[in-house]
């Protein structure tokens, strides 16, 4: 009895003590936002690999993390301009003749990897191994064009213009700081074809079985070994490196037990940890000197949230700081209603366009014979062209923009050029001269009336209540609500010009596979260029272009696109674009409609966020972010 009483007394005293200590620290002060040094960015995918260079790991999130952890010679800013990173080094054309085009890449002295190893020209050589099919074959690393077996360096770099035009091996200068790449002809996109730095010493060390960071001298020895392996095409060594490059970087879980050699990089941040399917944490790289100075953020976390509503609520709850959202009207309204959250509109890289079929696509043998078919018979050809013109005249571009895009991005404007987007240099010149005013002048009602007159020339019975021309239209799946709404608007608007638009055969999933098919008359979908390139639209309009699904063929356009593959001044480029654009307008081939809207919400306390349309979209200027 006595013992219980004592115990009770002790207990009461303990409770009292607990309560008192509790009461004394009652006041709760939310931490001052200004002292925060961590940014949590939402990604719509989870990281699967530290190496976004293989076809299987080429995900946005992997590329974003690689961008933040590695600096190259240039990057795209939010104005779609390619900016040189002069801190790391510079590049310039050193020779330009008809059959010999050379670009020299020079690294600045004193730049280091996160393990302290100096960055030299040797680090630029791996790019050649990853991009040249000829090197892969010669070094016994497999033929990238083999349809049965993947090459040992399972790189996504093969098959591009670098692969088809590079001559010999890149040469290294005597001081090992300059690498010169030689091509067999001028490369219009030479700026974005160039090599990037890769920690070749880390690859060599891992190939030798090392599991820890080594001394700088050991690193330099490893780097020298890579140079020898590269020059002598040492198959045995390169195979080991290939295995590491293709497989070992594919890790979704990173912790202190991860081989630190995998994490060696030259970016402002290095990967510290990653939880599979959840998040990746990057911390400041103390040795960083390869790019612009950062504004003081210590940690950047990429957190995977697939569901946009969940991400928006997490933003409201302060769990995340930056979120590139789903661009639909209700999400934007939801974000705008949150306090402490800033919403930045803008556009993504994609732009919607409508294409009218001319002839058979590249992948088909039978002929297209629908109402829009171009023909050698002048009368038939004129009729088809008139119908196409009428179709484009009646196409409700402004209505689509106003009803479907403006609620999300109030600053959205119609796109009137198939080569350039609003705001890019030369866009205004092209729009003024290409003749696109034919499809923009006056009201939509007037254009529709003109369209109906054109149709009546061939089908006198046509009227707004009597649709005489059947048009089968191909577009995305009904799961895409914006496209579905777009299609409804098109059906209603074209009916007023005498067109009966259906999607009876298509409009289902898997529509992309039907693009080469000859059974449709018109299609609308989006192009999503991943880079700004003077030849970027060639594949769409060249008569043998891989993206010329509509069977458009014109000698003058082919000439212009071939000219675009040579070295031209800005004015010359615009002139060539104009040749193509004029033909596209006069033949009523295609019309762009709008740029896909993008929405970014971020904690208002975070400064410096400027979403960009091209990869790496949001994070392009991460070094400017600060609280």
């Amino acid at each position: 009895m006595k013992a219980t009483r004592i115990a009770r007394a002790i207990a009461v005293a303990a409770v009292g003590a607990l309560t008192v200590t509790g009461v004394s620290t009652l006041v709760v002060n939310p931490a001052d936002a200004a002292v925060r040094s961590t940014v949590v960015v939402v990604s719509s995918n989870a990281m699967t690999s530290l190496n976004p260079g293989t076809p299987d790991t080429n995900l946005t999130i992997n590329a974003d993390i690689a961008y933040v952890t590695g600096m190259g010679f240039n990057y795209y800013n939010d104005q779609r301009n390619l900016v040189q990173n002069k801190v790391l080094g510079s590049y310039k054309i050193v020779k330009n003749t008809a059959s010999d085009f050379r670009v020299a890449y020079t690294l600045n002295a004193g730049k280091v990897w996160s393990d302290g190893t100096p960055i030299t020209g040797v680090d630029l050589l791996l790019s050649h191994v990853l991009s040249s099919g000829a090197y892969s074959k010669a070094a016994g690393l497999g033929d990238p064009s083999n349809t049965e077996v993947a090459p040992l360096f399972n790189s996504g770099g093969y098959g591009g213009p670098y692969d088809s035009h590079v001559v010999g091996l890149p040469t290294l200068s005597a001081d090992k700081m300059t690498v010169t790449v030689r091509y067999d002809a001028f490369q219009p996109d030479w700026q974005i074809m160039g090599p990037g730095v890769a920690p070749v010493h880390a690859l060599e060390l891992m190939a030798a079985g090392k599991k820890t960071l080594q001394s700088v001298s050991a690193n330099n020895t490893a780097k020298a070994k890579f140079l020898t392996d590269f020059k002598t095409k040492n198959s045995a060594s390169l195979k080991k490196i290939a295995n590491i490059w293709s497989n070992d970087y594919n890790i979704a879980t990173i912790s202190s037990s991860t081989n630190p050699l995998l994490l060696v990089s030259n970016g402002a941040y290095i990967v510290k940890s990653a939880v599979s399917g959840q998040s990746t944490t990057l911390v400041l790289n103390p040795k960083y000197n390869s790019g612009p100075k950062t504004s003081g953020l210590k940690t950047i976390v990429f957190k995977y949230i697939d569901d946009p509503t969940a991400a928006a609520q997490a933003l409201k709850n302060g769990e995340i700081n930056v979120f590139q959202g789903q661009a639909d009207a209700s999400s934007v309204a939801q974000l705008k209603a949150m306090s402490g959250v800033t919403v930045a509109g803008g556009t993504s890289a994609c732009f919607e366009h409508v294409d009218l079929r001319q002839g058979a696509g590249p992948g088909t043998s039978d002929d297209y014979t629908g109402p829009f078919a171009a023909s050698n018979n002048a009368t038939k050809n004129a009729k088809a062209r008139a119908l196409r013109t009428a179709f484009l005249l009646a196409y409700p571009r402004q209505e689509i923009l106003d009803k479907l895009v403006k609620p999300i991005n109030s600053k959205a404007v119609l796109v009137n050029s198939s080569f350039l987007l609003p705001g890019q240099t030369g866009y205004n010149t092209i729009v003024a001269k290409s003749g696109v005013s034919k499809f923009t002048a006056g009201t939509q009602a007037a254009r529709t009336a003109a369209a109906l007159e054109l149709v009546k020339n061939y089908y006198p019975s046509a009227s707004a209540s009597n649709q005489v021309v059947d048009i089968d239209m191909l577009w995305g799946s009904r799961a895409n609500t914006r496209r579905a709404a777009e299609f409804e608007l098109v059906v209603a608007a074209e009916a007023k010009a005498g067109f009966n638009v259906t999607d009876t055969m298509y409009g289902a999933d898997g529509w992309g596979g039907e693009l080469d098919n000859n059974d449709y008359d018109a299609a609308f979908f989006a192009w999503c260029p991943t880079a700004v390139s003077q030849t970027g639209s060639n594949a769409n309009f060249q008569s043998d272009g891989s993206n010329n699904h509509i069977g458009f063929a014109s000698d003058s356009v082919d000439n212009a696109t071939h000219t675009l593959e040579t070295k031209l001044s800005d004015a010359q480029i615009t002139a060539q674009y104009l040749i193509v654009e004029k033909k596209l307008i006069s033949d009523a081939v295609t019309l762009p409609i709008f740029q896909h809207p993008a929405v970014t919400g971020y904690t208002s306390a975070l400064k410096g966020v400027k979403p960009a349309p091209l990869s790496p979209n949001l994070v392009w200027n991460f070094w400017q972010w600060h609280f």
Partner: protein
Amino acid sequence: MLFVILLGSSFLIYNLAAIASDPLEELRVSSDPKVKQQILVLIRDLQLNVPPPLRYFNWLKGVLGGFVGDFNLGLTRSHESVADAIGHAIPISIRLVLGATILAIVLGITVGIVTALRQYSKFDYAMTFLSFLFFSLPIFWVAVLLKEYLAIGFNDFLADPVLSWPWLLGLSVFAGVFWSSVLGGSRSQVFLKFGIAFSANALVLFLLSETHWFAQPALGPLVVFAMSLGVAFVVTHLSVGLSNRKVLYGSLSVSVLGFALYLPVQQLFTKQFSDLTLWGLFAASLLVGITAGYFSTKIDRGAAIRTTSLVALLTFGIIYVDRLMRTWKSYSETDAINYRPVPTVGEANSLLEPGNYWFTTLDSALHLFLPTVALTIISFAGYVRFSRGSLLEVLNQDYIRTARAKGLTERTVIMRHAFRNALIPLTTIIAADFAGVIGGAIITERVFGWVGMGTLFNKAIGGQDLNLLMGVFFVTSSLAVLANLVADLLYSALDPRIRIGK
């Protein structure tokens, strides 16, 4: 037979999925100059030039390889082993859904029993209404509401954790109505019970609010002791009846021992506390319970041991929860949490420094909080209706009348004769639900940002990843088949008339 079902269904699914999807779709509208090479690589990697019915046998070869120790479900499109991906996802799915399923079963069956015993009472109607209401709510919408009020709203409230008067009174009225209708009785009794529940609740809430308890919750040894005593009474009442004084004293002594050990145990609750110690303490509690039960009585020792063991485990549980609650304040103050402890999304806060057992445990518990509430709300309704119907049916049986005629107490009739028999039909849905747990909760995982089986399935369909889809399908269909078997075995355990054999 089971094997044939798995084989046939997997063949069908494989071919349907392969025909319906077009992995090259994106590349067809790509304007990348390397698109030809990209298409070649994809065809090479996914063997798209092999017709699906033949490709199926390639996949099957990997699965059958399991018999010779070379199990292979292939690679996902991001070159991860499908078996690994599923291996990662299963524990996450289990963590997400298991707690909610158990909670829904326990709550659902309890409420179902109470409604059956108070058939056609106001409580019965209210619960019927609520369970149908919950049953018809879409989970993504429930999730949005829960996040808005239980997470964002509650975190805002924590900045100044004082309940306003309307909230305090509203919650108290709710408590009063709830308890008076559960306990029932004559009109005057109902009013009395309402009054007691209302004022007790209002008083407690007022005190908690005034002491800013919500920002620094804790139970303290006295509340822990009171709760433990309550547990002892309730568990004893339900299992052997309070009239069995010996067992009651056994249970109460376990509570007293728990109270005495409260402070010493705190010494073990350090930062370096581990799951191993936790299991050790669980084992110790169990041992205490068994010992107390064994020595409390000489008659019907099995029931006594069951009772005291349960009391011991629950008492330890309360002490453990108390420790977690006292972690709340310092947890909230960390930079990672920044005074917003209730999260809306994810499995864990990646900014939290590892190394503190209590922080990480509280963190996972809080991340589980909303999904568990959401899933419980949704699935609880089914159990309520099933157990209510099942118990009502059993209560009308002749053997119940016989039991009552024998003079057995109402407790014995309900718990021993009716409840156990009412469980038999429930077994089927419980077994099926557990198989469903592994199958994943696709929408729940998506809205709460968990990467379990549901997410894999979703990703497999969205990303046209055939190997991943088949891997998920293979695991879930095998489990469904297995769950049926387990249900059959459980029948025999519950119902002595059913025997396994020829």
